[in-house]
């Protein structure tokens, strides 16, 4: 094997002399002897058919940059896509901190050697708790969909019931994630997912339908606020009351950046809150900035049924000093394997630190102001677009996303979006297949990053495109 030395910067012990020394210390002639346990018939004989290596860092960088340059970015084009991955401003300090080597590369070090990691996480839980008005926030999972699915499973275990109610207006992808977590019907712990209708004019939950569908089998009523299509659900107290009267838990999925101006779900009776922290300082990263959270009441049964890791602050032997301990560690799959609560694994930890820095920078005023700017910009765009001939906007209330209907212009969303590309604009997400009942519609997202002129640019492009 060691005919030709392959010395690589990532592999210090690729230096032949060192290898010889180590082999000698071990007492073998060659590395091959160390593979004695892998029988011949399982050995891969040939050389893997991979491209020629580019060991030079500079050349490799040029190579990858060359490929990446084929992407068009949301800075080159004006972007109005959202639908769960939202373009917000990422403060420079957030980038500075999440790219710190210590945070970027840490893993499972304990409370003593990785104290800063634990403190930053605890600050994340604490700041989120303030935003949500709840006392417990979990370690993150992969995304909102997983957080919602795990929350529903928690509710099923807590109540001992196996049916959940979710709004008919829900992201199809998120629903698919939830349904996978709720298992197919034939399985013994299947949780039936039933839909609550919406009111056509407002896009909000149809309370009468909720009353019809809720029963003593209902483990949880799940709603989202703002809804998937951007509306502000205002019947929350009533939904909460109906859920509780029927012994079901009330679960709310939220976009946390709305909570500088919207009522925290803890105030309207949410038992479990879930959502995605991506808007709190994470780049859109082609969907790589997603990070689901679960928060709930500070009651033992909730903590005991939560599958994700939970940490508590703890006193040390020195006055006024804190460390951190894992709460009820044994309940997780790390503690009990198949007998644990669902499963836990490496997911999106770094983004909790990003969100902690974001919320620290924003403070109470910043969170209020960013919410105000978003809601004003979005409603401004919605108003101007709604005034274009042939275009309608659906529903009354809007936080940052809204539905545009193009039925009156005789073009498909796909055609319109293609035409918008000529104006260097990414139009909204096509809903025509996901929600055929809304006809030829798209979901547009406007945030604090859009200036008045950006909005005007979209409006005038749309005017041209729908002509």
């Amino acid at each position, binding site marked *: 094997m060691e005919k030709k030395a392959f010395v690589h910067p*990532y592999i210090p012990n690729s230096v032949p002399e060192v*290898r010889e020394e*180590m082999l000698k210390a*071990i007492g073998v002639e060659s590395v091959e002897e*160390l*593979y004695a346990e892998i029988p011949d018939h399982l050995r891969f004989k040939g050389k*893997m058919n*991979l491209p*020629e*290596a580019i*060991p030079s*860092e500079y050349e*490799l960088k040029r190579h990858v*940059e060359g*490929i990446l340059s084929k992407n*068009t*970015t*949301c*800075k080159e084009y004006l972007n109005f896509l959202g639908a769960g991955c939202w373009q917000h401003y990422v*403060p420079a300090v957030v980038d500075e901190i999440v790219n*710190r*080597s210590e*945070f970027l*590369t*840490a893993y499972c070090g*304990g409370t*003593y*050697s990785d104290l*800063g990691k634990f403190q930053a996480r*605890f600050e994340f839980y604490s700041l989120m708790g303030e935003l949500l008005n709840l*006392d*417990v926030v979990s370690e993150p999972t992969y995304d909102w969909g997983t957080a919602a699915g795990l929350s529903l499973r928690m509710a099923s275990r807590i109540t001992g019931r196996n049916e959940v109610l979710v709004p008919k207006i829900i992201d199809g992808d998120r629903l698919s*994630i939830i*349904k996978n977590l709720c298992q197919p019907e034939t*399985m013994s712990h299947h949780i039936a997912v039933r839909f609550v209708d919406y009111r056509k004019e407002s896009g909000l939950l149809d309370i009468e339908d909720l009353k019809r569908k809720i029963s003593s089998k209902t483990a949880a009523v799940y709603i989202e606020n703002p809804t998937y299509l951007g509306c502000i659900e*205002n019947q929350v107290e009533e939904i909460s009351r109906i859920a509780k009267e029927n012994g079901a838990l009330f679960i709310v999925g939220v976009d946390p950046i709305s909570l500088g101006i919207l*009522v925290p779900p803890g105030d309207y009776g949410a038992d479990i809150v879930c959502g995605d922290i991506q808007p709190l300082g994470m*780049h859109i*990263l*082609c969907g790589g900035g997603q990070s689901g959270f679960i928060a709930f009441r500070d009651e*033992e049964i909730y903590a005991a049924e939560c599958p994700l890791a939970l940490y508590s*602050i*703890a006193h*040390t*032997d020195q006055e006024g*000093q*804190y460390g951190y301990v894992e709460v009820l560690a044994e309940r997780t*799959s*790390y503690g*009990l394997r*198949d007998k644990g609560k669902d499963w836990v*694994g490496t997911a999106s930890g*770094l*983004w909790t630190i990003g969100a902690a820095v974001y919320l620290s*920078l924003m403070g*109470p005023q*910043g969170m209020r102001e960013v919410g105000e700017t978003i809601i*004003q910009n979005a409603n401004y765009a919605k108003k101007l677009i709604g005034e274009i001939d042939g275009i309608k906007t659906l529903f009354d*209330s809007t936080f940052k996303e809204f539905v545009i209907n193009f039925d009156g212009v005789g073009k498909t969303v796909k055609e319109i979006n293609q035409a918008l590309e000529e104006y260097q604009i990414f139009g909204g997400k096509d809903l025509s297949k996901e929600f055929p009942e809304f006809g030829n519609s798209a979901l547009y997202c406007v945030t604090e990053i859009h200036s*008045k002129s950006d909005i005007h640019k979209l409006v005038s492009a749309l005017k041209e495109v729908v002509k």
Partner: protein
Amino acid sequence: MKDIKLKRYHGASWAEPLIMELGRKGERGIIPPKADQEVRDTVGEASSLIPSNMQRKEDANLPEVSQYHVLQHYLRLSQETMGMETGIDIGEGTCTMKYSPKMHEQLVRSDKMAALHPLQPEEHLQGILEITYQLEQFLKEISGMHRFSFQPGGGSHAVYTNACVMRKYHESRGELEQRDEVITTIFSHPCDAATPATAGFKVITVMPDANGYPDLDALKAVVSERTAGIMFTNPEDTGIYNPRVAEYVKVVHDAGGLCFYDQANANGILGIARAFDAGFDACHFNLHKTFSSPHGCEGPAGGAYGVREELAPFLPVPLVDFDGEKYFLDYDRPLSIGKIRSFLGNLECVMRAYAWIMSLGADGLRTVAETSVLNNNYLDKLLMEIKGVSRPYAEGKRRLEQVRYSLEQLKEETGVGTEDVRNRIIDFGIQGYWMSHHPWIVAEPFTPEPCETYSKADCDYWAAAIHQAVKEAYENPEFVMNAPYNQAIGKIKDPSVAEDPNKWAMTWRAYQKKYRKKERE
């Protein structure tokens, strides 16, 4: 080991308050953009756009801290984190704590990666789709499998994806009601047992035989027409490669079950042995372990999930495909399990894995594997010379990329257990080691994995630190039990906080309620 001088290390210690205790009312960390005057004039006050019962009445009780001090605070916290790069992180076995090239981070941060929306038209994502497609080709070659999905957001998530694919496969054949049992082994990662349970399967765990291999007779005794499949690791977390793995696969196949290969421990077999060749139907890789993505305080992570042709129809949607001219997202897969994560997965991890493999090529990957095995056997030589350290199972058999050792003898002779030693070695400037997943089949375990990143000198230093801690344990056990000494904080006083609802405080607001109230009274 006698000539190695251990560092007089001390962890950074800033006695940093919590961010909630910093700043003064009115301070600002950042000022968000304001809506334009014309915008505001047109739509009115924000409050007028919110139903009155939905308006937040009081601002969130967040800290008010100037930008410099927010930065300073989190810089200090980062310094109080040893992470992987400052301490020699040989100890976290099964985690493959390898170097994550910094150049990758420059690319991840660039707009061409960071400012992409996953729902952009395919024409505008050609670069990242090409990279994803190419990485799939690489992993196909490395594993022998036929299709890969990068949607899973971590290793356990990929294993969960497999449970969903097994479920869908049997469902599509009308056999799901009959095939409701998944088999795993106790030395496989907990997710191999936990995720099929979450997916609705009954789970049967096979214990090791006297040599530490999964008990083949036990497997034969429990496979049946109820078997949906097996999900296990090889080498298992003990570092022992099971040479008869193909027989296990055959036993399960003969019963009509599927075989999933958890490849969290793949670093020692890249280019050496392939999942497909041992007969497996599916496998996964951790892009954040084997393929250099940084672990990021436990994510964002990447799970690459690969299958044989027969299982490809069940993979999550969309898959990335190439029509000869352009890359596209294939949603037209009617048998798919659907989604297990939003969008396309953590493509930043995909990009890093692509770059890492391109830097090394086929020979380089083999060198990675061989070096990790060389390092491990070298470290093993050093550790086995230390009194009180033992290596259970499979006497005389070589371990691959990691070993599960036991400090049982040390514990019995001194009362000092593995957790104490773990707390002591961090005082020498190396990261605390990973003990073992639960349950502890190996008593007082620790599991180092000196992957290719580490030099001979790193291995020497690490072994010397263990040697020192063990020596101290024999001389003065209580000294080791009270470790660590050179860290930012002292010893946690009351571990019952972890289990007592009246004592635990998972947010600062909960802490205020439970503790500060008492102080005030």
